[in-house]
Every structure is written in C-alpha cells, then in structure tokens.
C-alpha cells in the first residue's frame, strides 16, 4: 500500500520535497514510515526525539496504524506565534 508523506520546515529542506509518495507494508504504523524515512534521509535522525506526527491532518501517535492512501505528516518542533 502507499501513503503520502508530508514534510515541513527543515525536514522538507532535507528531503528536498514537501510531499513524497512511499510504499509501506500492510500493518505499518507511523513509526514504520518514520523509520524508513530516516533510513532514506539520515540527516533526519536528530529529529527522532523531538518530532511529532499527524495522520490525515489530525494530531496522531507514532503507534497509530496507517492505511492505504493516508497522509502522514512529520512535524519538527513548531515555532508559530
């Protein structure tokens, strides 16, 4: 199955794109998606501790299972205001 990965701020800079389409195994969690992303872009590793995530534009957990067609977003520490 496939998910759309959304990346922002420095993560977007590291990947060179704000949106990636990636194949993931059935039963994959957000964590699975993040791990393959780190394997693909080692420069993202420092974000392991500070990243948060969203699935289909709602706050989510890394333990959440993803489904085919989901939009999985990784959020570096925010700095709005």
């Amino acid at each position, binding site marked *: 199955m496939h998910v759309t990965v*959304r990346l*922002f*701020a*420095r993560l*977007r*800079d590291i990947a060179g794109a704000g949106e990636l389409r990636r194949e993931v195994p059935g039963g994959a969690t957000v964590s699975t998606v993040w791990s393959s992303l780190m394997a693909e872009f080692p420069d993202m590793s420092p974000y392991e501790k*500070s*990243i*948060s995530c*969203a699935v289909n*534009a*709602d*706050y989510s957990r890394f333990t959440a299972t993803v489904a085919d067609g989901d939009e999985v*977003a990784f*959020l*570096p*520490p*925010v*700095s*709005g*205001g």
Partner: protein
Amino acid sequence: MGAGTAITTTPLDADALVRALDATGIGAVATFVGLVRDNNLGRKVLHLEYEAYEPLALRGLELIIAEVSEKWPAVRLAIHHRIGRMEIGEASVAIAAASPHRADAFAAARYAIERIKQIVPIWKHEYFEGGDVWIEGATADPDNVEAREKAMKAACT
C-alpha cells in the same frame, strides 16, 4: 461575525478580530499581537517566512478555542495567524478575547498565545544578516499535560 480562526497570507488586523466577536454582555476585550522583531538571539533579522501545515494548523487553533471555552466559558476568542513572508514590524499572529470581566479576557489571550507556540504546526524561517535558519520550538503534542499546565501558569490561573 467573521471567522474565529484563520491561517492567512494577508496582513492581520486585530481590530477586525475584535469586531468579529459577539459583543453581547461584554465588558472587557484583551488583544495580543505578535510582531516580527528586528533581532533574535543577537542576530540582525532581515525578514521572516512562516510555513504552516494549514489544515492541521486550523485544527490546532480550533482546539485552543475549545480549551479556552472549557476553562473560561464566558470568553469569546478569535485567533488569526499569518503565513508567508513578513517584514520587520509586521504582525504574525493576532488574538482577541472578549469577556464580561477583564481577568478572563487577559487570561484567555495569554493562554492562547502560549498554546499556539506549543501545538500549532507553524514554522518560522528566519533570514538574518549572514544566513538563515528554521526556528524550532516545542514538540507539537496537544495531549502533553505538562505543556498545558505551563500555559495555564503563564495565564496566571
């Protein structure tokens, strides 16, 4: 009534936010506007660019308004956040809180700006003299109880 929340590329107008609030029975209006500062951590800032995950950022603002309604039922709150390029002195965020009494209006506005900085997926790209950098603040987790308590404490409640 205008929109209580917005993520927008157009300049902000705190006055418009106030006018958008239901004024029935209101005795106090507190507003907060965050502006692009000309310096940060000793760097001379040239301009900023804000990026958002827009649908989630809007949801985050709505969540803050719900949290405020739960804590201060009489308060009406509006929050607009600007994204895109902003020059020194331009407003990046505007908050208006109206309430029958002043204590709640102040507390709600103060709480809201803390929560924005904690949970709303917006990122500040700082262009300064000599380079540029993404500013990274808080790990966005609306369920983080400690963060919420910190915001409540800043609101003096």
